[in-house]
């Protein structure tokens, strides 16, 4: 940025000689012939580095001009050097400094002194500019940090909320399980007790019982059997209601985020086995999926991948577009499987589950659930496996197509 200097003098010759004295130093000059002129220029042209102001001018002298200049907030920072023909009288100098002068130069001026004084203020101005720029930069960085901090806080809050919701869901589920247990153990046990006692008595030695007693016992048996049937129906109704709660609710999801969320819980498992768990799913793939089912699918598949991969191996997730679908791959460097195991993987002919490389147990239900959930999305599952080299399981779910 060039150093802009305003020269104010009512005498053209003086203006010219100041310019000549300073011209080698690469300054940009603006000239004013009166205080009024100087003010007009200052208001139109920003960023002056220095004002050289003649004291003795008609109508408005240098002191008055300086006073008017410094009334403007924007102009207060500009240093003023007074050019004076007066002798350096103490009183005059004091008046000058009060008006805002930073220095005095006597007329006729010594060119050398003028140059060096102006050079000092030009340098000062440059340094100030630099400082201001750095301050602006720091402020920008600070603003970024504040924003980043806010974003982090927001994410923590969102995460906390999600966890709290999940917790509530789980608690509700637990509560209904408790209720189920209590119904099963108490409400079913009572009629069964009556039923068993009556039928036991009847079958023990019926010849000792009076016809009336036989009638009474049979009635109890009939009544309690009906009660049991009612309760069985209630339990079935209740179970149906529970399973309806896990209905299919597809929503628009960013696949990479949904998967990353599912992986959170499994990271400790992977770390424990020193398995490198990587999510390479492209950020731009969006899907229509039930978030709970997607989580269940990913967690089941990745859990399996970790289970059948020896220590130090890797499990990689990736995805690509495939027509209207997104195809997600879970690839491990594990022990692989034989063609026979592969064919029976999703048909529950053998519910026994193979144990993992660290003898992790399994229920054999995980893959059944996965294939159910994928089917509900209208997707397909495929398995590729090489014994001893690894397995890749892929599944498809509806994608939100990019062509918009």
């Amino acid at each position, binding site marked *: 940025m060039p150093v802009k200097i305003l020269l104010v003098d009512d005498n053209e010759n003086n203006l010219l000689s100041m310019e000549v004295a300073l011209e080698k130093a690469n300054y940009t000059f603006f000239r004013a012939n009166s205080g009024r002129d100087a003010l007009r220029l200052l208001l139109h042209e920003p960023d002056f580095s220095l004002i050289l102001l003649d004291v003795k001018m008609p109508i408005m002298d240098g002191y008055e001009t300086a006073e008017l200049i410094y009334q403007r907030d924007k102009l207060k920072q500009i240093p003023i050097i007074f050019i004076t023909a007066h002798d350096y009288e103490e009183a005059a100098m004091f008046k000058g400094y009060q008006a805002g002068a930073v220095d005095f130069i006597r007329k006729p001026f010594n060119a050398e002194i003028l140059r060096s004084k102006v050079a000092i203020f030009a340098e000062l101005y440059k340094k100030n500019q630099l400082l201001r720029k750095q301050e602006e930069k720091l402020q920008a960085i600070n603003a970024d940090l504040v924003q980043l901090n806010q974003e982090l806080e927001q994410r923590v809050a969102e995460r906390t909320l999600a966890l709290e919701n999940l917790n509530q869901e789980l608690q509700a589920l637990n509560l209904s399980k408790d209720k189920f247990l209590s119904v099963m*153990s108490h409400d079913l046990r009572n009629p069964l007790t009556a039923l068993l006692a009556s039928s036991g008595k009847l079958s023990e030695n019926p010849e000792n019982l009076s016809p009336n007693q036989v009638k009474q016992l049979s009635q109890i048996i009939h009544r309690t059997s009906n009660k049991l049937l009612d309760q069985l129906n209630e339990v079935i109704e209740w179970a149906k209601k529970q399973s309806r709660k896990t209905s299919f609710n597809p929503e628009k999801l960013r696949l990479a985020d949904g998967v990353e969320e599912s992986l959170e819980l499994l990271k400790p498992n992977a770390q424990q086995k020193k398995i490198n768990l990587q999510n390479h799913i492209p950020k731009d793939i969006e899907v229509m999926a039930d978030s709970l089912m997607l989580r269940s699918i990913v967690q089941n598949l990745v859990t399996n991948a970790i289970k059948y991969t020896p220590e130090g191996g890797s499990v990689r997730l990736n995805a690509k577009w495939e027509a209207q679908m997104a195809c997600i791959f879970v690839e491990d460097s594990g022990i692989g499987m034989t063609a026979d195991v592969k064919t029976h993987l999703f048909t529950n002919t053998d519910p026994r589950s193979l144990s993992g490389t660290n003898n992790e147990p399994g229920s054999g239900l995980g893959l059944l659930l996965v294939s159910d959930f994928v089917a509900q999305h209208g997707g397909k599952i495929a398995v590729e496996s090489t014994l001893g080299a690894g397995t890749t399981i892929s599944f498809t779910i509806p994608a939100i197509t990019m062509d918009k």
Partner: protein
Amino acid sequence: MKSGKILILDDDNDILEILSLLLSEHGYEIRTLNHGETTFENIQDFQPDLILMDVMLAGMDGRTICKSIKENPLTCSLPVILISGTHDLVESLHRPGAPDDFIAKPFDIDLLYSKIDEYLVA
């Protein structure tokens, strides 16, 4: 044939009926109650030799009733057998105010007879 009077408390009328049938056939005199609210009036009136009581009594806990029977000087020597389907009562047997014995639901008829006989013969 045995002899003795048994007060049975259970909120399930089917259980009351079958117990009443089984035990009266075995020789005992029976009175049944399907709630716990008038237990003490019935003890005074009926003067039972033993109380057979379910833990769950519509709105009341059999263990609480048992405790008040055991803490009352007039009734503390009256044997109480608790019947329960859900509560494991073995560990509560030796606490103050505990029942004398318990029977799990569903019960075996012969075990029921032998437990009751044990308290009424003595």
